[in-house]
């Protein structure tokens, strides 16, 4: 926006906001989106004015009274070309500009802080990595890139923050992401904008933007106990993942240390980057995500773990940055009641969930 005079810009923004034609601009993206919106409005106004002026003036100049005999004109290739090329040119400008913004919104930066959001009929559950849980609200600090990883537990929902100019669908079955950086502290609307049933209009909440100081205070004050990763660790242990995913040389599954973000070679050929979506799929549909060199024996956990559980597991795996960490978890396994009487390091056969031969559906 450097080429628009800041004074005019402020005036426009203030006027627009006071007249409540635009929501407040509370994110780094909002002015960029508003600039494109202004351009679109301007072009539309000009186009509409041209059409209205032409129609009105022709209607007056060539009304039957003033112009009783019509002149038959076939057309004009020049005019056709003009009003094809100019609109096309303007539309293409809008396309490129809009595409740039679109890619910007849906390509989170690498250092973004991730918050998981699970949508369900009819509430939003936000899960901070530190273990803070919120329902129908989201506390975020200013000045930091925040990525939201969204999923739905049931039907389509859509997480919309008009003040940030962002919106993203929460789909059942896979993660979607969006990111923003909040700039102005305050409380803003959160809406569900994808019709989801009876209480769709009540699936609303608050986005609370805090200064980094206040955010730290809020974090400290609202944690109830374990962080997401700690919950994930407990789940990892109770689901016996360490039976195969440990660091022993004869381990039946690949070690998960530092797996997050790594490039994996799959047994089906091809490589894949182990991101959130991959980890989720590997837990639910493992047979299509076997790492090369390992037998396809991982059982599926579909139906045994909720979306929040998967989020906890993913968060745990993200923070697994060393073999030592895994050994700590393995020890956690050994401390569980079911493993009494068995030596550490031996995977109890009974704990392998029924996969082959089972009819569990």
């Amino acid at each position, binding site marked *: 926006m450097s080429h628009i005079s800041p004074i005019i810009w402020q005036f426009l923004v203030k006027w627009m906001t006071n007249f*409540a*034609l*635009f*929501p407040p601009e509370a994110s780094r993206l909002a002015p960029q*989106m508003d600039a*494109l*919106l202004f351009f*679109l409005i301007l072009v*539309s106004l000009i186009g509409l004015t041209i*059409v209205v002026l*032409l*129609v009105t003036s*022709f*209607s007056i100049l*060539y009304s*039957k*009274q003033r112009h*009783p005999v*019509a002149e*038959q*004109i*076939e*057309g*004009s290739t020049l*005019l*056709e070309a003009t*009003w*094809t090329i100019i*609109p*096309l040119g303007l539309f*293409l400008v809008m*396309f490129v500009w*809009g*595409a740039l*913004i*679109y890619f910007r919104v849906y390509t989170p930066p690498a250092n973004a802080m991730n918050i998981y959001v699970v949508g369900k009929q009819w509430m939003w559950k936000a899960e901070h990595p530190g273990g803070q849980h919120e329902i129908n609200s989201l506390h975020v600090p200013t000045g930091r890139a925040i990525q939201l990883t969204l999923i739905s537990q*049931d*039907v*389509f929902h*859509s997480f*919309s923050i*008009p003040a940030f100019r*962002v*919106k*993203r669908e929460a*789909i*059942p*079955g896979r993660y*979607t992401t969006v990111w923003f950086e909040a700039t102005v502290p305050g409380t803003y609307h959160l809406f569900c*904008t*994808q*019709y989801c*049933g*009876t209480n*769709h*209009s*009540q699936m*609303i909440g608050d986005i609370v933007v805090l200064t980094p100081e206040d955010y730290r205070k809020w974090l400290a004050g609202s944690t109830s106990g374990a962080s997401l990763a700690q919950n994930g660790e407990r789940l990892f242990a109770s689901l016996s993942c360490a039976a195969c995913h440990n660091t022993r040389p004869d381990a039946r599954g690949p070690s998960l240390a530092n797996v997050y973000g790594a490039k994996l070679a799959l047994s089906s050929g091809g490589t894949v980057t182990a991101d959130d979506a991959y980890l989720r799929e590997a837990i639910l549909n493992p047979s299509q995500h076997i790492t090369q060199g390992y037998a396809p024996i991982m059982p599926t956990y*579909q*139906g045994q773990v909720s979306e929040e559980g998967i989020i906890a597991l993913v968060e745990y795996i993200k923070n697994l940055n060393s073999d030592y960490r895994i050994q700590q978890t393995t020890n956690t396994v050994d401390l569980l009641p079911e493993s009494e009487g068995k030596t550490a390091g031996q995977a109890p056969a009974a704990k392998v969930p029924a996969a082959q031969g089972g009819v569990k559906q």
Partner: protein
Amino acid sequence: MSPVNTIVSLPDQSTARIPRVNYLNKENGLLSWLLTGDHKRIAILYLISITFFFFIGGALAGLIRLELLTPQADLMATDTYNKVFSMHGIIMIFFFLVPSVPATLGNFLIPLMIGAKDLALPKINLLSWYLYMAGGILAIYTMATGGVDTGWTFTTPLSTHYVNTNVLTTGLAVFIAGFSSIFTGLNFIVTIHKMRAPGMTWFKLPLFVWAHYAASILMVLGTPVLAIAIVLVALERTIGIGVFDPTKGGDPLLFQHLFWFYSHPAVYIMILPGMGVISEVISTFSRKRVFGYTAVAFSSVAIAVFGFFVWAHHMFIMGVSNYAVLVFSLLTMLVAVPSAIKIFNWTFTLYKGSITFETPMLYAFGFMGLFTIGGMTGVFLGTSGTDIHLTETYFIVAHFHFVMVGGMLMAFLAGIHFWWPKMTGRMYPEKISQLAAVVTFIGFNLTFFPQFILGMLGMPRRYASYPPEFQILNVFSTAGASILGVGYLLPVLYLVWSLKYGEIAGNNPWQATGLEWQIQSPPLTENFVVMPIMDHEAYDYEWLERQKVKEVASVG
């Protein structure tokens, strides 16, 4: 009406009478109407039925606007509100807009305009109407027995697993109505290809026919995909086949692709015939050939072709890949261009014309302004970046109401008024109809323009309750809706009145050039006694002058 400011040319009312034999009085009795093969009678049957469904859909709209007067969901339970807006959309789209111009005016006029005695497949035409009625009655039945609350978009998994309302019956009603639409389009394509009069080459066809041809291609190719989407939803809902269920390996996004693959071309099915009407009206009331005939004809076909490749612009934020978004956004920009071309061509048809402002022309002017706004706001949505902020809000609601109601419905009314003399032999009352047109225009803008602002501010669509700061704009919108209701009620009243008391029209009160205006009003059942030979161009006002001279010369 001073003879200077109008082109209306009526026979001497003291001696004029309706032609003794015409399609309305050729046979009498209910069965002669219910078992007719005459395209004109079928058009009238459609006209009565779609008017009926329009008012049901309109009543539902009234309920929506009443609820939205206050921020709380206090008029009806939210479940009821969800049903009301779902049924409003389903009835208005499938039982009013899709058949409106094609099934009434298209059915009536296409054989007349091309010089044929009927459509190619009259029995299929009648079947079309029965299918439409079956679907419509089924839709009313579902409303009466509890309605459906999935939205007109039947989004899965909500519609397959999370509601217990009448999804199956409504889906069936839409499925049946879809076949009505397919058969109408099929009939039109065959007729236009195979039954043109001698000399009627493609480029002598009125633009109304071109527009219907393009819309028919969309009807024929697009509607079956909606049919299969509905069948899959029904199978998923009844026996749980799992094609859309992520827990069974299915993908809910697949439904979105299948649904929008039809539903985007559907909007062009709805608007193209209206554009055809506007071409005819603007030409007649400027006494000029449409500027750039070839461009307008080809742009209709271009809209039809491009319209098939843009469906995913309804899914920009749903997790489709960024690169897919690029492709669809670009194609959406391309499909916007032909509509712009048409608007400019119509504008320049006025240039050096001889313009009068009878009611059809007023509706046509309304169309041009409102469709321009609606179309430009479509570009806001096709621009992927801004779509993120504007999608799923009232901006979308405003956009499609501008193009569908401000555009299509105005074009429909323009056409009804324009061809009313041909269909009934009577003129409508000019002053009150001009008043109704102005009232409609004002009411429309007051209803829907505030909704653009609501959308910009972020108010989501399909909400029964909303934050209080949105109330003022909602109140404006509801106020406008009441005015709009008056504007739509008036035509029904005075058009019915005109059937008995309207002035006798004669065969060509507008002095228009189409073949349909060269025969009696109302026409004979067989349309033409002698096969017409098309030896002049479309919109040939000089040829018309020579006809008048001939007529005068041959009397007495």
